[in-house]
């Protein structure tokens, strides 16, 4: 492939992460183009969350490099962190505070200027239709409202990349649809790059420009949805995914015990 270097917003090279004896991520390399929507798929325990944690500076790689928006994620975590927003798999809001206070804390943590964040908070909270509820405590919000607030918060500091780790898990179809509409608008308006994981194949099919499939810590396929279908000779992405990753149910391989506990806790 002859891609222009400046066109790569995320570039991962030979990334490895071991947990004691388990190799969670085994030498993966890929890149994400500026402005695209990139789906990162894989069965439970395939190495998705471990990879995202390394891309977002929360975990040191055993070896290999991550470059995000031109910054080395591990040599320069501060600039890297300013370049992305993230919506975690499980909520990370302070439920004892109001929606607005959660946004305000984020603005201060990211060093935004007052005149910038006052406007931006209102704009984003209006977009996710929570401006009218800004002074309500987050603990009184539904799952969908919390998720919308987290998306607004993740975008507050004008990130170049938005990470969404199973953003629509447990949400009703209405909210899911709404969420993807917001994200589409933002990609058009702000040239945002979106990196997401999901277990809903139709969601990846519909919303991703590029799909990468990870299994047992290695990337087993990458390309457009059509490419994956062609490659596996299947008609739907779900079938292609199963053909690539097998039909066996996965136990907790690839992640160490504590990680899995956290995952399950998050699921409930």
């Amino acid at each position, binding site marked *: 492939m002859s891609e222009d270097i400046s066109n790569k917003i995320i570039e991962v090279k030979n990334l490895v992460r071991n947990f004691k004896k388990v190799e969670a991520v085994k030498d993966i390399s890929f890149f994400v183009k500026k402005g695209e929507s990139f789906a990162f798929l894989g069965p439970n325990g395939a190495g998705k969350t471990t990879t995202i944690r390394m891309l977002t500076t929360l975990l040191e790689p055993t070896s290999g490099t991550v470059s995000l928006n031109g910054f080395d994620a591990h040599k320069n975590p501060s600039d890297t*962190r300013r370049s992305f927003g993230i919506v975690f798999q499980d*909520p990370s809001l302070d439920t004892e505070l109001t929606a607005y206070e959660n946004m305000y804390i984020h603005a201060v*943590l990211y060093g935004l200027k007052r005149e910038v964040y006052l406007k931006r908070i209102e704009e984003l909270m209006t977009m996710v239709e929570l401006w009218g509820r800004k002074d309500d405590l987050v603990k009184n919000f539904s799952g969908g409202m919390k998720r919308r607030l987290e998306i607004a918060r993740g975008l507050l500091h004008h990130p170049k990349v938005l990470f969404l780790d199973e953003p629509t898990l447990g949400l009703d179809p209405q909210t899911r649809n709404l969420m993807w509409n917001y994200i589409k608008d933002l990609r058009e308006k702000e040239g945002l790059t979106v990196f997401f994981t999901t277990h809903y194949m139709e969601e990846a099919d519909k919303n991703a420009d590029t799909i990468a499939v990870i299994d047992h810590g290695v990337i087993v396929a990458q390309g457009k949805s059509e490419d994956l279908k062609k490659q596996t000779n299947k008609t739907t992405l779900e079938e292609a995914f199963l053909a690539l990753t097998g039909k066996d149910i996965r136990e907790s391989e690839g992640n160490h015990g504590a990680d899995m506990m956290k995952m399950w806790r998050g699921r409930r």
Partner: protein
Amino acid sequence: MILYILWLRQIKRYLRSKSRIVGSLGQPILFLVALGFGFGPIYAKAGGGNYVQFLAPGIIAMSILFSAIFAGIEVIWDKQFGFLKETLVAPVSRTKIMIGRTLGGATVATIQGLIVFIITLFIGFRPVSIMGAIFSFIVMFLIAMLFTALGTAIASRLEDMQGFQLISNFLVMPIFFLSGALFPLTGLPKIIEYIVRIDPLSYGVDALRGLLSNASNLGIGLDLIVLLSFVIVITIIGAWQFSKIEI
């Protein structure tokens, strides 16, 4: 600004949890009334003088100890309910996050101490001087910093609240009972005396007693030096443990 926002968060959470404010006052009031009036006559008969005058600084220290440890332990809640991730993925150093939180928690614990101080006045406690009372607030804050940082250091290593009982029974209660908060530290067996000497709360209780009741055992100067050293060392350990949290 970052320290301020993290401090403010702790204060807001505290002011909103009315049940926590009221609930945490029950124990000190019970101790003051039950022990103060219950042991008072015996203490006086033994030649100790006014027991409430002796006990009140100890109970103030106790309420600060409990509130502060609890404020530190809140890190576990933030781990479980996720807000910790929001702060750890922000472009801010972990040391700053830890210090901001600790200052907030310590402020909350100091406020609890002040409320208990006011309650003791109703039960008959009379501080010896206004200057002493004002200086005692500084000691209260030092005690609060020390134990919030200690709680944070411990909570950074724990996955969930299951270890909390262990900490409460094997760390917090011994720190409290061996600090001289309830009884004078004179004529103790040698071994107990050594333990009392390494218990940081002993110095906090002694300093408060010196400032409020004019009855310091060790000397307020020594108390302050020891307390301050503990605050610095434990805060450094806390910040180090906090920096190692993996989420």
